[in-house]
């Protein structure tokens, strides 16, 4: 079965230890969130899992058939317009040009972009639009594993909800598995089967929270209740240094 | 006897090559070769390339250049010397009669460290003058620059070689803005200075024909020399036609310039072996100034081609 298995993963940048002894498994159809303080090593962990950084110690074995990555910063090609940027992954996967453009236009509309934005170059987009293009580029290839690095941070509450429901829809159809980084605990609770809490200096997993209710069954009530609960957790409080305030 | 497929002769655009053009035009060597080709070399690089590639039979060269090549191990032998005097001074002042009169003047000298320069410097030294102190020598890269400087009045005197002198005189005289263009005069003839200073005749063995290793056939060589002599005679006696012929083949020269120059050049074809002594005397004068100008040492006797 397709899965991503991370075993006793360590990582250094230069002489600084960034990650220590990370272990987890992401099975097909699951959503795994990573939460933790800024600079804790979440992005680094994702890059390691996606094979964008070389694993030095331990292992990260990815047996998913296909994967794609939505980066924390949008990383659009400045010389390509919105549609061409979205179509990039499709073309790389060997899709015919016209089909790729068609699919890209469709997903762009779904993501709240307008016809008039299609020809714009990234420099003429708003921050949130850039993020949506980047997200759409990753989703349009229908990967079986999706890496998401704070994909909603620049979006307004309406769009956030809409995109989340698109994801939830795919999750409930077991079409996709997601490794997800977020700073928003409610977001994590709404989407994940499991949440990993990554504490900093060096990044290590201090706790895992599991949620069994199917994502499309989770209503606002459930999310509020769970997040109130999680905010009482000692590990959460010390990791985010919440008590001081 | 069988005819050669092709004879290739290379030469510079100077006077020494001009008889060759006549030879080719009149097809003088048709009894020994089906075809005769002339190849122009414009600078030492081209000469080197031509000699090394070895697809040339005869070259027209300055005598000292032939000596350098010979000393560097190239199979080259001097056949004859045909140019015995092309150097002269050109000046805006027609009262200067000897090199001494130029003392303290600014003189343009093309061909630095080449044969004309060295002859000039030696002539000065032998008269007890110091080229560095008594004159202001301005080296320029080629005769054209010297002519430019003369015409633009940046300079009043220059060492030049024929036919550049004639070209320069023509050019300035015929120029439409004659009023501001300076009048130039043919001044000291270096050959005369040579005769006076070294107490000999006016002959300086400056350039001639040489044969390269590829050409082994003695009969062809002697035919070649014969015809060269004939063409040289024609060249000297038909300045106008010669000018036209040369200008049509070598577009760097003008026909009037060439025609004018013939009267001022000391031309006569002498077998190299016959004038070995004169050549060696000349080489010794050069060597005194800078041995490199003849390739370090006098060439061996085999350098002077002998007909048997």
């Amino acid at each position, binding site marked *: 079965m397709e899965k991503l298995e991370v075993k006793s993963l360590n990582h250094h940048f230069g002489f600084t230890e960034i990650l220590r002894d990370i272990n987890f498994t992401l099975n097909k159809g699951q959503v795994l969130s990573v939460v933790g303080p800024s600079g804790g090593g979440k992005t680094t962990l994702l*890059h390691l899992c*996606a094979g*964008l950084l070389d694993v030095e110690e331990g292992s990260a074995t990815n047996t998913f058939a296909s994967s*794609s*990555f939505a*980066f924390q*910063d949008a*990383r659009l*090609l*400045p*010389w*390509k317009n919105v549609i061409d940027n979205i179509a*990039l*992954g499709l*073309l*790389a*996967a060997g899709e015919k040009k016209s089909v790729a453009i068609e699919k890209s236009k469709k997903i762009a509309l779904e993501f709240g972009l307008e016809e008039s934005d299609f020809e714009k*170059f990234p*420099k003429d987009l708003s921050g949130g639009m850039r993020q949506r293009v980047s997200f759409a*580029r990753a989703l349009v*290839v229908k990967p079986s594993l999706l*890496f998401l690095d704070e994909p909603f941070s620049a979006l307004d509450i309406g769009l956030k909800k809409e995109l989340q429901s698109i994801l939830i829809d795919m999750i409930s159809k077991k079409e996709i598995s997601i490794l997800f980084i977020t700073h928003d605990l409610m977001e994590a609770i709404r989407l994940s089967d499991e949440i990993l809490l990554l504490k900093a200096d060096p990044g290590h997993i201090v706790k895992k929270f599991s949620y069994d209710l199917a994502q499309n069954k989770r209503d606002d009530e459930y999310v509020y209740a769970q997040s109130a609960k999680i905010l009482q957790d000692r590990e959460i409080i010390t990791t985010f240094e919440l008590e001081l305030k | 006897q069988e005819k050669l497929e092709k004879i290739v002769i290379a030469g510079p655009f100077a006077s020494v090559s001009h008889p060759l053009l006549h030879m080719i035009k009149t097809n003088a060597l048709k009894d020994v070769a089906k075809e005769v080709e002339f190849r*122009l070399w*414009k*600078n030492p*690089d*081209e000469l*080197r*390339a031509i000699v*090394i*590639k070895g697809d040339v039979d005869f070259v027209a060269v300055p005598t000292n250049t032939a000596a350098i090549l010979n000393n560097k191990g190239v199979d080259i032998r001097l056949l004859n010397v045909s140019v015995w005097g092309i150097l002269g001074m050109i000046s805006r002042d027609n009262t200067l009669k000897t090199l001494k009169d130029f003392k303290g003047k600014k003189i343009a000298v093309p061909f630095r460290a080449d044969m004309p320069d060295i002859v000039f410097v030696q002539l000065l030294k032998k008269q007890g003058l110091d080229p560095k102190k008594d004159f202001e020598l301005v080296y320029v890269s080629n005769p*054209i620059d010297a*002519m*430019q400087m003369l*015409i*633009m009045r940046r300079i009043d005197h220059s060492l030049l070689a024929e036919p550049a002198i004639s*070209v*320069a005189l023509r*050019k300035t005289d015929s*120029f*439409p*803005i004659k009023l*501001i*263009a300076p009048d130039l005069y043919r001044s000291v003839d270096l050959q005369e200075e040579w005769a006076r200073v070294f107490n000999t005749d006016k002959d300086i063995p400056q350039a001639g024909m040489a044969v390269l290793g590829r050409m082994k056939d003695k009969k062809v060589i002697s035919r070649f020399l014969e015809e060269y002599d004939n063409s040289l005679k024609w060249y000297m006696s038909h300045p106008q036609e010669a000018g036209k012929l040369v200008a049509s083949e070598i*577009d*760097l*020269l*003008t026909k009037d310039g060439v025609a004018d120059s013939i009267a001022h050049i000391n031309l006569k074809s002498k077998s190299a072996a016959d004038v070995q002594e004169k050549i060696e005397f000349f080489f010794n004068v050069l060597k005194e100034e800078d041995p490199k100008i003849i390739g370090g040492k006098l060439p061996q006797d085999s350098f002077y081609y002998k007909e048997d």
Partner: protein
Amino acid sequence: MKFTLKILKDFPAYLWSGWGAIASILLFIALWDMGNQIYGNLVLPSPLETFTTLVAMLADENVIAEIKTTLYRASVGFGISLVVGTSFGLLAGFFATASMMSRPIVTILVGMPPIAWIVLAMIWFGMGDETVIFTVIVASFPIIFVGALQGTRTLDGDLKEMSDSFKLPWHMKFFDVYFPHIFSYVFPAWVSGLGMAWKIVVMAELLATSDGIGASLAVARSQLDTPTALALVVIMIGSLMFVEYIILEPIKREVELWRS
């Protein structure tokens, strides 16, 4: 196709924007005329005389043949430099070892005066097109190489990572991700290399052949025929301007549209 159409469409606007350029060319000609009045015809013929000579020359098919010869040599030489210089520059940029190995060779090429090459080239290729072309390549190749190398060296690591994550095949990686960045470095290098090629072709012809604009220039010079010499220089500058403004610049505008 669409690309070409677009270039053609933008063309009038581009020409229109050229008034400033024309003004400064006129200024230059005015200065030249002043120079003529100061130094006289023999040194610097008047623009009028030069252009009259030029017109007469352009009617002469021998002259046209010389120009064609030179154009051919310059284009072939520059074309090869462009392709080889760009590709080697890219290779050197992508592989550190290639860079280490090739840079001193390039420095040697840069530091070696063309005169040092010409003898070898004449021996290898004779006194014709090939020698000139070879000299042109040797002279303009390093400029283009250095530009391409720098373009490759300054690639954005984030975009590289992104293209890795989508497993772009190499041709997409190159044309969609690397090229537009590298272009902004290699383009000015092309322009400089073109200028260099154009200058060297004439010099090499002057030294090593008996045809082409360079040889004509040598003839005009030795006959002190300055109007012809200047007319030849005008031809050179004119063709260079043509290539630069009518061919290269519109291409650049189109490729760099995303910047504006």
